[in-house]
């Protein structure tokens, strides 16, 4: 009853009657709004797509898959209409601006964008040989060189993985993904939790105090959380350590490290050699090499490459002005290296021997001279003394007789 009274109240109001009589649909309700989005995004220029997969890794709803198309002869993104949420991440992360979603693209064309990735890339400064291969292949110029080491800009990186392919050293560019991170965060949480419950007592596990590799650290503070001593993450220093080894366990990127690391090249069946007949001996390669793999021969004064140290980065190959460096089989280069090394060693041995002999000779000669001079002086003085004494004696007797 009450509500019907209120109907009456509202229906008899002047404003309502006015509105009722002049009722018509406004134009803006018929036309779709201008900024209505086209969902899902479409691939506008498939021929310009570089198949980097940035859209696939940026999609939060897993709606994009890279699929090989026969007529374009490359992988192109295929967008699942049902799963797309129209967030526009793919459009903004596309480095070649191929994708199109309504007029969102126009408005975000020049804006910076951080791409969420399934995999993150980070350079290990202890393993990096600073050859710059990653920098040259990066399609979005996300890698920079800052005097000491190369660095990947996380914000610019689109996760195309080309740098990892180009890098000559195994594991110099580390990959970590959400799964690994989650596991490590979990582990950290569990260790902390059991510590609070006083369940776990850890004895000494590792032999030395670990160090922090600066370029690998992502400041997640997992190590600080589990550390029984203290870690100063601002200066990347372990201040005090009980050697429990938990920090190494929970670090998601392996930035906590003990012991030495060795560089393992990816190409193991081939190696660079220097052809001696072409080489002009300028030694640019010797200066360019970052891993000390090039030695100078004692005999010819020409450089040669040590395949055991060489990481096949190709810096010397690129720098050589007369193209005297080429790539051959590992066996050949190793043979060559051994022959040269043996010759070098022999040469060095001979030179060393000669050196020693001449040194000895000179010393002996000097000794002999000194010795003989002394002897001569001695005998001389002896003779002189004897003669003078004799003369004195004879003089005396002559005096007596006189």
């Amino acid at each position, binding site marked *: 009853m009450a*509500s019907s009274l209120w109907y009456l109240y509202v229906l008899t109001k002047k404003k309502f009657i006015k509105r009722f009589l002049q009722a018509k649909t406004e134009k803006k309700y018929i036309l779709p709004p201008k*900024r209505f*989005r086209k969902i899902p995004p479409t691939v506008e220029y498939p021929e310009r797509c570089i198949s980097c997969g940035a859209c696939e890794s940026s999609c939060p709803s897993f709606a994009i898959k890279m699929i090989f198309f026969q007529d374009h002869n490359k992988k192109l993104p295929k967008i699942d209409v049902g799963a797309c949420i129209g967030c526009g991440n793919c459009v903004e992360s596309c480095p070649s601006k191929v994708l199109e979603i309504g007029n*969102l693209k126009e408005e975000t064309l020049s804006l*910076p964008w951080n791409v969420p990735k399934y995999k993150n890339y980070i350079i290990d400064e202890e393993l990096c040989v600073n050859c710059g291969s990653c920098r040259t292949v990066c399609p979005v110029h996300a890698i920079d060189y800052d005097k000491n080491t190369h660095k990947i800009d996380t914000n610019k990186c689109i996760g195309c993985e080309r740098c990892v392919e180009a890098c000559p050293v195994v594991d110099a560019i580390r990959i970590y993904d959400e799964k690994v991170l989650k596991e490590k965060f979990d582990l950290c949480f569990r260790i902390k939790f059991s510590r609070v419950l006083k369940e776990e007592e850890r004895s000494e596990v590792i032999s030395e105090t670990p160090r922090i590799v600066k370029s690998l650290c992502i400041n997640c503070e997992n190590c600080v959380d589990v550390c029984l001593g203290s870690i100063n993450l601002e200066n990347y220093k372990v201040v005090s350590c009980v050697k429990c080894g938990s920090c190494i366990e929970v670090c998601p990127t392996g930035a906590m490290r003990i012991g030495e690391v060795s560089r393992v090249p990816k190409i193991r069946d081939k190696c660079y050699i220097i052809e001696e007949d072409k080489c002009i001996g300028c030694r640019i390669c010797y200066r360019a090499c970052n891993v000390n793999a090039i030695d100078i021969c004692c005999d010819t004064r020409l450089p040669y490459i040590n395949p055991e140290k060489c990481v096949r980065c190709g810096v010397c190959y690129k720098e050589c002005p007369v193209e005297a460096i080429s790539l051959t089989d590992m066996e050949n280069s190793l043979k060559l290296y051994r022959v040269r090394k043996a010759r070098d060693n022999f040469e060095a041995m001979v030179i060393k021997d000669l050196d020693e002999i001449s040194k000895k000779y000179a010393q002996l000669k000097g000794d002999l001279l000194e010795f003989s001079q002394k002897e001569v002086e001695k005998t001389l003085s002896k003779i002189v003394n004897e003669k003078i004494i004799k003369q004195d004696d004879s003089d005396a007797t002559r005096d007596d007789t006189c």
Partner: protein
Amino acid sequence: MNVIPVGPINPIFKEPIRIKLIVEGEIVIGAEIEMGYVHRGIERIMEGKHYLKGIHLAERVCGICSYIHTQTFVECIEKVSNIEVPDKAKYLRIIATELERIHSHLIAVAVYGMAIEHETFGIWCLNIREKVMDLLETIAGNRINMGFNVVGGVRQDITREILESIYNTLDTLEEDVEDILEIFRKGPLISLRSKGIGVIGYKEVMKTRAVGPVARASALPESDWRLRHPTYKELGFKPVWAEEGDNYARTLVRLKEILTSIELLRRALEFYEESTGMVRKKVDIKGGSGEWRNEAHRGEVTYKISITDGGIIKRILIRTPTVMNLSAYKYMLKTCPTVSDAVATYISIDPCISCTERSIYLVDRRTGDVKPYSK
């Protein structure tokens, strides 16, 4: 003494929850609340993910107030890594939040109208809400999950025409809301069913830490976190409050807050027109951890975040307002004469269950092991 189970699936509820009302005849004595029907473990999913994916996930914490969650998340990260937001973006954020607050409050009032069997009132509110939703769509592109916020600003700017359409809609909106308020004040049925029912006093609110309109209806205006937000301070915000602490006061506070929101919107739009520059800045995320609070439409929302360099979420903790408001519900029941009043009281606190249930910890009773539940 009898027990009446309500829910978990019940036409009056927006989301599944189970309330066991303890009654003596028709009089309600107490209630037991059971949760855990819609847990989704959203905090666990976020761990180890890039923060941009985190924004999309934070948006899905709640179905109605999705925007304020992204804003709190983003402002928390901005606080951790010391990022200044451009002026335009600040005001755009306020505009979106306040529009969302209007539509959220309108839903709350509409559902309350339905709960006291005044469907017409409810439908009127929902009709008005539609205009706000259209505005939100023109601003951000989507109606609910807008994906509008990013760290360092907002995703896109608005144009002149949109600005004008907001101004125009605000005028009609104000008229409509005033109409609704008039009906709400004068309608006999509404005041009969809601005045003096579900009363909660100042002290009980302090005891249960209730937040939002529930606290403000019991004479606690300083519970509004907008008072402490830097941009709202610029806009000269003043909270709305009432003293009675009953269902009527709570709904009235909501309706009045719509009017303050409209005022705030007008001021924010003016400020927006004066400001220049980009709406989004390039950001560089630094690792660290921090905390940020915002006034969501139901009360205070807290985000605690620990983040690594490059923006990977290490751990996140979300606290939504409904948890505290549900515990206040038990005190309100003391002044509920009938079962249907108890249900109406429950609706008047505007609960949001999927907000509340985010992560679950499994406790093994025998061994006492506690571990987070995932999958």
